[in-house]
């Protein structure tokens, strides 16, 4: 009887050890890149370029860009150039695709506008997703920050918010409004930038 009991307790220790060993094999999956040599303290003014749009709604990138500009300003840490001034500088710098400028174009843009960094990005998903009879809004945004002095990418991050959850499957409902989800995704990205 006593031998059986000690066998069970050894078994428990073994299972625990096995789980701990498996956890040690896990890798941390991060969607954020930060240049370790970059001093982000020098960035006082940035320009947010028109975002790329991979969705079917043409206005999505403008909407997300507006939220991003205002959220960055609202932090009080960074000044963002007005969108009209960015549009003018894009023309002057002869940038072919403002959503994905080349390093040389970013350097030229920086010389014209005197900004320390440029933020570019893409809206990957914006709208409702369906799973069976359930639907909910979802937003997926990817951003990167490029230093204007060197034209080097110093930070990238992405965020996805919304989507169909267990709660939606069980209790239904259409999720939060699109604007709220967008603000959450943008706030998440800003948190990653300032982390």
């Amino acid at each position: 009887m006593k031998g059986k009991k000690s066998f069970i307790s050894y078994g428990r220790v073994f299972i625990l050890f096995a789980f701990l060993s498996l956890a040690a094999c896990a890798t941390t999956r991060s969607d954020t890149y930060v240049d370790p040599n970059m001093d982000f303290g020098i960035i006082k003014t940035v320009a947010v370029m028109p975002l790329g749009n991979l969705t079917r709604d043409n206005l999505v990138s403008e909407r997300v860009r507006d939220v991003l500009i205002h959220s960055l300003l609202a932090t009080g840490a960074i000044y963002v150039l007005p969108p009209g001034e960015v549009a003018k500088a894009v023309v002057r710098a002869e940038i072919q695709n403002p959503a994905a400028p080349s390093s040389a174009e970013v350097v030229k843009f920086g010389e014209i506008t005197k900004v320390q960094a440029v933020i570019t990005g893409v809206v990957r998903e914006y709208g409702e997703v369906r799973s069976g009879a359930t639907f909910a809004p979802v937003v997926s945004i990817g951003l990167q920050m490029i230093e204007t002095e060197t034209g080097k990418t110093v930070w990238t991050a992405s965020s996805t918010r919304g989507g169909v959850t267990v709660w939606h499957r069980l209790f239904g409902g259409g999720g939060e409004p699109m604007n709220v989800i967008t603000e959450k995704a943008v706030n998440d990205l800003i948190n990653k930038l300032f982390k």
Partner: protein
Amino acid sequence: MALHGREWPRPFLIGMLVLFLPMIALAKEENFGVSEKGKSPLRVAIYPVENLSSSHAPLNDIRRILKEQLSGRGVEVLGEAALETFMARHRIRYAGGIDQATAMALRNELRVDALLLTTLELYDEVRPPKIALFARLITTDPSPSIVWAEGIGLSGDDAPGLLGLGLIEDPGALMKKALNFLIGSLTRALSAHTATERRERSSRARFAPTIAYKAPFVEADRTYKIAILPFLNRSNRKYAGEILALHFMRAFQRFDLFETVEPGMVRHQLLGLRVILEEGLSLAHADALFAALDADLLVHGRVMAYEDVQGGGGNPRVDFSTLLIERKSRKTVWASTSHNAGDDGVLLFDWGRLKCAHALASQMVQSIGEKIGGKGTSAKAIKIVRGLSKDSL
């Protein structure tokens, strides 16, 4: 005091005095167009109604009612023939604003003291009917200034009351209600005898911008001349950019901090300087406009949604972003994102539900104004209009 040998009690006399004094004041207020010393009445021209509703609407009826109501209150309204001749002679096609040259011409050629401009934002006859209007009074000074601005958005089912007895199903009745409100507001503002401050109701917290940035730019004891540019329209609603600019004009007019530039002058300068706002306002364009309008601040933005619903179901939706650029620093001093629906914050029985986009946008814009300029009063308008007599003009 004695009557038939009997003295009236003092409390009774004081009570009568308290009761009748406001009535006397009101009686004087009604005749605001005529000054006390028997000077000639205020001479006002009423421009044709600007139609931003994108629908057929009884524009002539609106203008006729305004004319009748103002004439009935002692204001001398410029005759139709004289105005038509003037507009033809000066080739005026735009009735949504006035520039400096036209204002001067109105004053010199037709002896007009002020111009009443009316804009129809929404006219919907589908049950329940809906109407939204803006109106403003502009002096014909060498530098025309807005002395009064008001707006109203009504739906026939705003206050249905018990058993739906309060429903308004006749579009004409709703239109008259809206016009009565505007004329009442104008009367109060113009009355030289009502010096009491009328504090505007604060906007509700639920209409505040969701994201806002404000730089500390306000200097003490200073008034800022503010020009409001038409917003970029990315919504499905035609003229939403112009409509939102009118909301800002009306809201900012109430704040002591701001002196609002007449939108007609802004339009004139935008055309003159050939400024096309496709992506937003560049600093070079901002500099040119600051100089041309002698403004301290420029308001600009983007409308993403300005939606009214037909009939009784559904909720209006308004979504826009705002930028305020300051002349001295050449920087953005205010940036905000606002989005609301008519039923935001409504928990029970549709209490507090807003049924037209005008009412919703009006609250949202007022909230922005309060965050930038503090609490608004209408005392400023009254003070300015006091100088609007024949002598001063």
